[in-house]
């Protein structure tokens, strides 16, 4: 009957990981400052955040899916698909932007629904299902473009992807952080958010509390696809043109950002700000690698090592408990 001594509430693992991540980001800036004195400025940090915004938005969606106990591998293809369709509909004209966005959002919705049906109605493992959608979407944009995409990004979208709202603050960073804030409010202060955590942690328990587990999971796939569309638009604005390889890095990078940020791959643990920092960290690291003249190959290796390291670290931490 002895009640065990209760330790003061410790920082959760996610919070700890966020603190570590913040430290590592500062460390990277320090390294950069030593290698190129004077290169660490607010402007440069903002520039990194502008580059990170598309990834950051994809990572928000990925974080939602992972919180619910799933994974979404179709986000990269969704980004490219958005780019290809949006640019070809826009044809460089601002007046075409509404139809372009509308078509892309519809495609996103469709992709999310297909993922949701596959995972929740047909009981296909999320990994397999979203891998299938990924490949189907690739096929769709290859057929649509015949292998050589055409069109131009409209000036307005270029401005959104590249321009600055005030001073050194880019539009895209503002959009990213606003969406993050929104997702944070939903996770933290709404029944939906609470239920999502419960669903990801213990779906059986969630079900017995009257939570519609399948619906909640379904919604994460839709949100993830829609956020990938937003990211695709931001990335299109940033590069200002059309590219079939635009979305290539998003699967790995979004997973890395989410996991580095302290979200657990098995679901139910984590939050928004960790994955915001995670996306920023990834871009900062790549910028540093570029500065050191480490090419694409080096980036890929580093990417793999980071995901491995973080997940292994979480596993070790779990064992120690």
């Amino acid at each position: 009957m002895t009640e065990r001594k209760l330790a003061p509430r410790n920082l959760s693992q996610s919070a700890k990981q966020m603190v570590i991540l913040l430290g590592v980001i500062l460390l990277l800036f320090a390294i950069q400052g030593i290698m190129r004195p004077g290169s660490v400025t607010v402007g440069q940090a903002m520039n990194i955040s502008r580059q990170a915004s598309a990834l950051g938005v994809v990572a928000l969606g990925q974080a939602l899916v992972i919180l619910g106990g799933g994974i979404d591998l179709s986000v990269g293809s969704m980004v490219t698909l958005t780019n290809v369709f949006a640019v070809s509909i826009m044809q460089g004209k601002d007046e075409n932007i509404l139809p372009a966005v509308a078509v892309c959002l519809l495609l996103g919705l469709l992709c999310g629904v297909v993922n949701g049906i596959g995972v929740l109605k047909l009981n296909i493992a999320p990994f397999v299902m979203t891998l299938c959608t990924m490949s189907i979407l690739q096929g769709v944009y290859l057929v649509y473009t015949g292998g050589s995409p055409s069109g131009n990004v409209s000036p307005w979208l270029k401005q959104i992807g590249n321009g600055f709202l005030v001073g050194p603050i880019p539009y895209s960073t503002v959009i990213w952080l606003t969406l993050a804030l929104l997702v944070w409010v939903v996770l933290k202060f709404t029944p939906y958010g609470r239920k999502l955590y419960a669903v990801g942690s213990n779906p059986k328990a969630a079900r017995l509390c009257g939570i519609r587990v399948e619906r909640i999971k379904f919604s994460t796939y839709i949100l993830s696809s829609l956020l990938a569309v937003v990211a695709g638009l931001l990335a299109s604005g940033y590069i200002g043109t059309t590219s079939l390889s635009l979305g290539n890095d998003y699967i790995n990078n979004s997973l890395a950002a989410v996991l580095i940020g302290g979200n657990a791959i098995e679901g139910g643990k984590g939050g928004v700000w960790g994955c915001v920092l995670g996306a920023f960290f990834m871009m900062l690291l790549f910028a540093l690698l570029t500065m050191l003249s480490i090419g694409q190959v080096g980036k890929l290796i580093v990417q793999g090592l980071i995901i491995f390291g973080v997940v292994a670290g979480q596993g070790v931490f779990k064992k120690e408990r």
Partner: protein
Amino acid sequence: MSEHPYLEMSGITKRFAGVTALDSVNFNCELGEIHALVGENGAGKSTLMNLLGGLLTPTEGTIRLDGKRVELPDPNTSYDHGIGFVHQESNLLTNLTVAENMFLSHEILRKGVLDRATMRQKVMEVNERLGYKLDPDAQVGSLKLADQQLTEIARAVLSEPKLLIMDEPTAALSEEEVERLFAILLKLRDQGVGIIYISHRLEEVVHLADRVTVFKDGKNAGELERGDISKDRMITMMVGRTLSDIYPDRSAVTPGEVLLDVKGLRVPGAAEDISFTVRAGEIVGLGGLEGQGQRETVRAIFGDLRYTAGEITVRGQSIAPKQTIGGRIRSGLGYVTHDRRGEGLILHESIRENTSLAALERVISKFHLIKGDEEQRQAQAQAGRLKIKTPSLEQKVGNLSGGNQQKVMLARWLMAGPKVLIVDEPTRGIDVGARMSVYEIIHELTQEGMGIVILTSDMLELIGLSDRILMFYEGHLTAEVPRAEATEERLMQAASGGKKEGSAT
């Protein structure tokens, strides 16, 4: 008999993170005897046997086999020392065959390849020895529960154990199957195997055991030799007090209006033609052996399982068969699961978050945001009422004791405010102190007009707590027994398929 017993466990203490599960316990067992180990849930029987089986290591104390001190750090070492263990829950791999399961991790190889013929032959030898016929090539998943259990026993016997531990082997068996099991155990005993037999069914123990050791709160409460073994003596030693002390006095209960009315419920493959009512202020106990359809029945009522016939009415309001769990909660039903860690709690979340999970809609503002202070207030009120021992509601429930975890489960449902609360195994795995508070709170809730349904495999709890007992056997209701007539004999008879007596009201 030699001067020292074959197995001698002395001064055994086992602590789990501050909780003492066993407190300097002594236990011994001779070859060729059936030694029963009895005690309430959480008294430490299974912990002691897990020490012997190599699943746990003792904090203090020594284990001797045949006079020699041994360390049992893992199950394989125990196996090598001739200790066979048949667990309470099946450890078989259902997609493998009987022979494959029996030789799992002890496969016989010839030239590096599985020697199936020899293994099959060995299975037949064990069949011969124990007098039953298991098909070595049958897939375990396709066998009846009783045959799966025989496979477990056969697996243990295969290693020629000196000692065989049986942890509640009869929980899922019918009377006939129990008889068959006993014949096998007696045969093994006569072949010189020492059998340690854990059971809740005291009449079985009287029938079978040569010696009984009684555990209470992690300590030896005494030992009885054949001839002195009787149910009354065991109960007195187990409980340390008479029944009327731990269960609330429910003599003054007068049931009110009907809150839950179930008519002709059919849950495919589990329950058939189940009808009963629950009134305000009443505790209705659903009893029977494990797996007789009682759990499926309440889960169907709660909307977790599909039912193909029958009508459920809560407070006069009919519930559509397609109604979701959430809808049923809003109609006034609640269900505390038997498996609070597996499908009840979110272990890494706080007491507050766990408590409000089924009642989030009660603490939201008009913008659909959770009102933090209101959530805190309501969760605090329930935690306080249930006397959950914690410095803060922000404590993770994974860090709480079993008793406090169970209280969090109850707090969750009190916050949701049901009219009928179904409590599945109200006190499984919690200590005596927490048990009494759970009983007390259930009693209080009925005084406030709630209707309670309890499911329990603990016969004493069923008798002690229920105003009315419904017994299940093979998916049917076999008896309805009012409190005044509830005796273990009467209930056991109904649990084994005795005639339906009385009528469901």
